[in-house]
């Protein structure tokens, strides 16, 4: 059951049409989501240790890019993590995503932290620190199951 505090937090977030969002990892997924969020009018900062990955960002992206290692707190400070409403840990490494999520959640008390996880065995670990997770393998599996049912249903 949702506490009054968390409901209040959600209402306040919904009222804010301009969120400060940090996206760690500028791969295809991170870049695409960063582009969508900035188009919606949010302030987006993308952090990646390789400058070349910013090429994935679309031309419509209106936000900041910071070259830095997100496992180093200085890089997150540069991105002004203390001001963030949301942090997305979207690198291609579960360990890095966990470290970023932990710092965001436990040190900076960021209200919303979402991490991308490759290994489904790590889900529990992330959930223990109240991080929302996206697991591409499970998403693909769920999608396949639905498609499969649809195809079989149509075929029979």
């Amino acid at each position, binding site marked *: 059951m949702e506490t009054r505090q968390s409901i209040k937090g959600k209402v306040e977030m919904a009222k804010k049409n301009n969120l400060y969002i940090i996206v760690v990892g500028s791969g295809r997924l991170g870049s695409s989501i960063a582009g969508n969020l900035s188009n919606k009018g949010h302030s987006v900062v993308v952090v990646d240790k390789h400058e070349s990955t910013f090429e994935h960002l679309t031309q419509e*992206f209106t936000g900041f890019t910071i070259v830095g290692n997100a496992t180093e707190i200085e890089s997150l400070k*540069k991105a002004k993590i203390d*001001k963030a409403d949301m942090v997305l840990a979207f690198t291609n490494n579960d360990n890095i995503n966990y470290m970023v999520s932990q710092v965001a959640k436990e040190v900076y008390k960021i209200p919303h932290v979402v991490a991308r996880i490759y290994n489904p065995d790590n889900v529990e670990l992330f959930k223990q620190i109240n991080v929302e997770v996206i697991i591409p393998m499970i998403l693909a599996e769920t999608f396949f199951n639905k498609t499969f049912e649809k195809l079989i249903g149509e075929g029979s």
Partner: protein
Amino acid sequence: MPEFLIVDDETQIRNMIKKALDELEYQSVSVANGEEALKALFEKHYDGVFTDLKMPGMDGFKLLDAMNEESMNIPTVVVSAYTEAEKIISCFQKGIMDFITKPFTPEEIKNAAKEMLKLRIDIKETAQYVKGLIQQNAFSGAEKYLSKLFSSYPSSPIPHYLMGLKYLKEAKKLNALRQFKASYALDESYEPAKKQLEEVISEIENGDKAINQRKSGNGKKE
């Protein structure tokens, strides 16, 4: 409508600042470096400047120096990725109003723009006040406000007219004449300057006639 100048070499940053100002319905003009900014500032009046520091060609530090050299009294806010204390202090020493570090939020830009507008002086109110100071022979106070008026409203006839009044009060008729002429040149329909210009010209002409008469009178005696 308030108008701001945005100086940054990155198109994306310029667009972000512009977007924030658009939301307040403030106008803006964007340029990519210090040289272009100076050119724009000479061409017309802006209510405030948002400038980056690290830019190719004339950078933000040099732009601030040039603006001071030219006595451009325009509220300026630096928007930079620099976070070193020395650089920030150096900018404040050059007279900036605020320093925003990148990455910034639109709210920071909007608040800075509103603060810059608070520094805008009302020309009619200030002109009335300056007139009072001139009448009381408080010339240094009047000059202080006049320099603000000149930098904020360079194309208005009012600052020149007031400067003329000050010279007149100091009995510097020729200087006053120059100022009234400048005021009249800026706006021929500005009646106070026209009236003063005519009066000063006729006073000078009458003075000349008197001198000539005296001279010719003296000549006759000899």
